[in-house]
Each structure stands twice: as C-alpha cells, then as structure tokens.
C-alpha cells in the first residue's frame, strides 16, 4: 500500500517527528513524504514530494488533497502538532476520510487499520477501527525516529501553480519567544508547578524548594495561562522542553501536551491522584498533597545540606 507522510516543518527545518512518522509508515507500506517549503530533505528515508509554498499554512490541506489524488495512499500520517493538526482536520473533512487523533499506534488490519489513541488527559486508551484510506494524527515520541532517517529516495519538486491551489490565510511573520532571565530548557534542576498547587500564593513554596535545590521554577499551561508565572516558564508542546538532571513535578497531571516537553534525566512527581499519568514517566512517584509535603521536604533538604 502507499502511505503519505506530511512533514512537520518549522522555520524551514524538518522536525524530528517527521522521521518518527516515516519510520512507522515504512512498516505499513511504500512511503512518500510531502514537504511544504524549501527545507533540506536529504535525511528523509523515503521518496519526497516537495512543494515550494513557503511556510506551512492551514489552507495547505489543499496541497495534501492534490498529492492524495496523485498517489492514492491508503494512510496519511500527520504529526500531532500545532501546525499539522490544522491541515489534517481540514483535509480529512474535505475528502470525507475517517480520522484518528492523538494516535500512539497504528497497524494494518483486514482492509483497514486499527489505531490506538491516548485521550482524556492521558488517562484512557481507545482502540479504533478505520476504513482505508484513513488519516492519522500521531503523538510526538510514539515511534523511534531512527527508522525514518537515511538517504532520501526520489525527490519530485512541485510549485503551487502546478498544483492549482489558491490562498486563504496569509503568513505575516514569526514572533520569537521573549528572552527571559532564565532559559528553563538549559537548567539542570527544574521545579515545576501544575494546577494542583491550588493558588498563586503557593508558587512561593515551589520557589523556596527550587532555591534549596539550586534550581528554577517552571509550570504547566494552566499556571501560565492564569498569569502566575511568565510564558517563558511553560513546559510542554507550546512551551519549552526541559532536558536537565531533575524535573520535579508538583501537582501536574501529565497530559500528553505537557510530557512532550519533559526530557529531563530524572522525573520525580508528587500528585494526590495515584492514577495521574505523570507517574508513567517518573523515576520516583509520591502520592501526597504538595501543600503538606513540600514544606516538610524543604526542611529535610536543608537538614541534609547541613
């Protein structure tokens, strides 16, 4: 079968998730990767169709539609990212194709597919049966990227004019993240607060803990959205990825969009809910109320440091 992968391109660079998708797609059939823009495609381990259309835009579902007509793929894979989801949902609706979102696994079955999705904030898995052709929006990190890397096969270049698609939304420009006092992605020790911290006043507790550990404070989206911490401190899909030695998660549930940004070597999570998904990525998990435990922990750390 033919499988089409829609490449994730940000600022003209192929993102790692593209290789993850290509790797999985190769298990399913013959792969073509569709790349919008002029990024270097030489490491994509498949054939490529490259369309000179600038930055990926939501209305580029029209490009996918044209390529779909040409290749007649059985499966079309997109990354579950802020760029690709806009395109995927419109493409599926435009062509009346079944679509699975938040996908963590795909297999071919009979004349269709079985997909697994991780939903409800990471608390539920659902297996879905989809008829072919089908659209899959796959979570980052679901498949190894190695299989998708190699040397590119045949590269076909197409222009927007050849595809005959027209504009709908206009790209004005990028707005780079503000440069703050600290870059949490570069810090070794990050104490991160989630909605479970309860109140803005309790952020102080996390700050004190970060201070005794020699780290900095970060947070999950609801904490940032509430204005309790600056935007530059957000961990996750929309924010930064932490890669240091320790990530200490206080009252964070561990939704997919959050854990995408947690690549620290050691994760310690404190959560009142023993079923919190954050425990699945933790080296150490503590079932406790952060407001009760953290003050005692600060004292014990001080004692240990002497």
């Amino acid at each position, binding site marked *: 079968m033919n499988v089409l992968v829609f490449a994730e391109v940000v600022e003209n660079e192929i993102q790692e998730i593209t290789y993850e998708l290509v790797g999985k797609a190769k298990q399913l059939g013959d792969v073509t990767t569709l790349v919008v823009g002029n990024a270097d495609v030489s490491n994509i381990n498949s054939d490529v169709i490259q369309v000179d259309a600038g930055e990926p835009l939501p209305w580029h579902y029209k490009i996918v539609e044209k390529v779909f007509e040409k290749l007649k793929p059985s499966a079309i894979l997109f990354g579950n990212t802020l760029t690709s989801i806009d395109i*995927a949902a419109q493409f599926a*609706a435009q062509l009346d194709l079944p679509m699975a979102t938040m996908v963590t696994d795909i297999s071919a079955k009979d004349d269709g597919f079985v997909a697994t999705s991780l939903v409800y904030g990471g608390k539920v898995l659902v297996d879905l049966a989809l008829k072919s052709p089908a659209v899959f929006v796959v979570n980052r990190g679901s498949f190894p990227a190695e299989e998708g890397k190699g040397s590119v096969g045949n590269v076909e270049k197409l222009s927007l004019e050849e595809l005959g698609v027209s504009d709908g939304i206009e790209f004005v420009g990028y707005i780079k993240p503000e440069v703050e006092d600290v870059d949490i992605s570069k810090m070794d020790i990050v104490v991160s607060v989630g909605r479970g911290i309860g109140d803005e006043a309790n952020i102080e507790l996390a700050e004190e803990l970060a201070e005794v550990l020699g780290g900095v404070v970060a947070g999950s989206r609801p904490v940032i*959205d509430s204005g309790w911490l600056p935007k530059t401190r957000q961990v996750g899909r929309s924010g930064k*990825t932490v890669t240091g030695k320790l990530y200490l998660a206080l009252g964070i549930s561990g939704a997919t969009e959050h854990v995408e940004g947690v690549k620290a070597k050691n994760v310690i999570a404190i959560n009142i809910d023993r079923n919190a998904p954050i425990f699945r990525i933790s080296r150490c998990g503590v079932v406790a109320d952060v407001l009760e435990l953290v003050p005692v922990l600060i004292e014990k750390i001080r004692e240990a440091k002497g």
Partner: protein
Amino acid sequence: MKICAVLRVVPDLVEEIEIEETEIVPFAYIANERDEHAVEEALILKEKAGGSVDVLGVVDEDTASDVDEPLAMAYAKGADNLIKAILSRKTFRRYEVAKGLAEFLKDKGYDVIFTGIQAIDAFAGTLGGMLARCMNLPYIGGVVEVDVQNGTLVVKKELGGGLLGEYRVSTPAILGVVSAERPLKFVPFAKLKKAMKEANIDEVDIEVPEIEGIDVLRYYEPPKPEITLLEGDPEELAEKLVEVLKEVSVL
C-alpha cells in the same frame, strides 16, 4: 462584528471516571478548558472591535443540563446570547458534529466563530477545522491573540517551543483557540448565581448525520507505571525523597 463561540462539556478529570470497554462513564462534566478560552477570546474581540457574542453550547441529551452553568458563566462575563445546541445523538466523530452544526450556523452571518482548538475526548477529529470545511470558511488553530486591522483579522498562532506566527485572516473565519490572550476572567459565585437565574438559553435541535468509516473497538486503561509509588506521612515521604535526590546526585 458578529461573533460566535462554541462551548462543549467534557468529563471532569478531577473526579473519578469509569472506563468500561464500550464507554467512558464520568462522574461529572465540566466546560472543555480550551472552549472556555475560546469564549474568553470572543469576549476580548468584542471589546476590541464591538459587536456581539453568541455562545453556542454543544451537548447531547445526556449532557444537556451540564452546559447551563458554563453558559451562565459566559453570560456573567458579557456574552449577549446563549444557545444550547442539542445533538440528535451522541457521537465521538467530530466530522458528524461539524456537519450538523454547519447546517445550523450557515445562515447566521457570523463574522468569526471561535472553538477551542481541541477537546480532551477528541480522538476522531477536531471540530474547528472540520467545521470550516463543512462551511467553506478559512480556519486557523493554535490561536492565542486576535486583533482587527482594516477589517481583517490579525491572528497570533502558537507554533510550539515558544514560537508564534502572525497571520492575516479574512472574515468570515473559524478560529481554534488554545489560550485566550489574558487569564480567564474570575466570576464571583454570587454573580454566577445571579446569571444562572437571569440568563435566557435558547434551545435548538441539531440533526447529526451518520458517517461510516471509524468505530471504537474498546476503551481501556493505559498500563500502570512500572515504579512503586511512595505513600505515607509527609515526614517519612520527605526523608525518602531526600534519599532519591541523593541517588540522582542533586544533593
């Protein structure tokens, strides 16, 4: 500007949810968080550009009354009209919902329709983009800010990793909001109670078509974490944590 915001309810994950093979049985429903942000951004756009905000609560028969409070909340914050769209049947397929809603929305003349970018139960599509194709309108998701310049929307979209993009979008359009540009307005309980009494909610029935191609095989719990969770009194736990911090050479 005639503005609409879609508001859905989803299982409250703070409460227990029962996972059965054929369905999810929540203990309670709450407003979908991203939709709350969509309503907020709709109200912010009204402040900037004038006009009115209609909030469209999308429910099925089982959840019909669960959206009353979130709708009243929107009213308390400044929404002009509240509509409850009751779907003719429960469905997990966003495309079916989009088709049903498009039929209702197509002749309402909205300049901008806001939806949350995604709901926590969205495993078969996302509403905004699908609604856009059913209505033949432009769509952009990941929206965190909306302004109007010379009659055109100027939208900021998240691209991940802190990066934003700026886009010009002609109206009418559908916008998928991830977060409003300011924190959700706080509504004191007394004001919410008053709104619950005063707010008038119109009801409309939405016929949901049946579209083949995707079925749920089963729902189930993800595997348990491989680690042993620590439990006990704070004193004991704090001591154990200090040991772990030493193990990972943080202390």
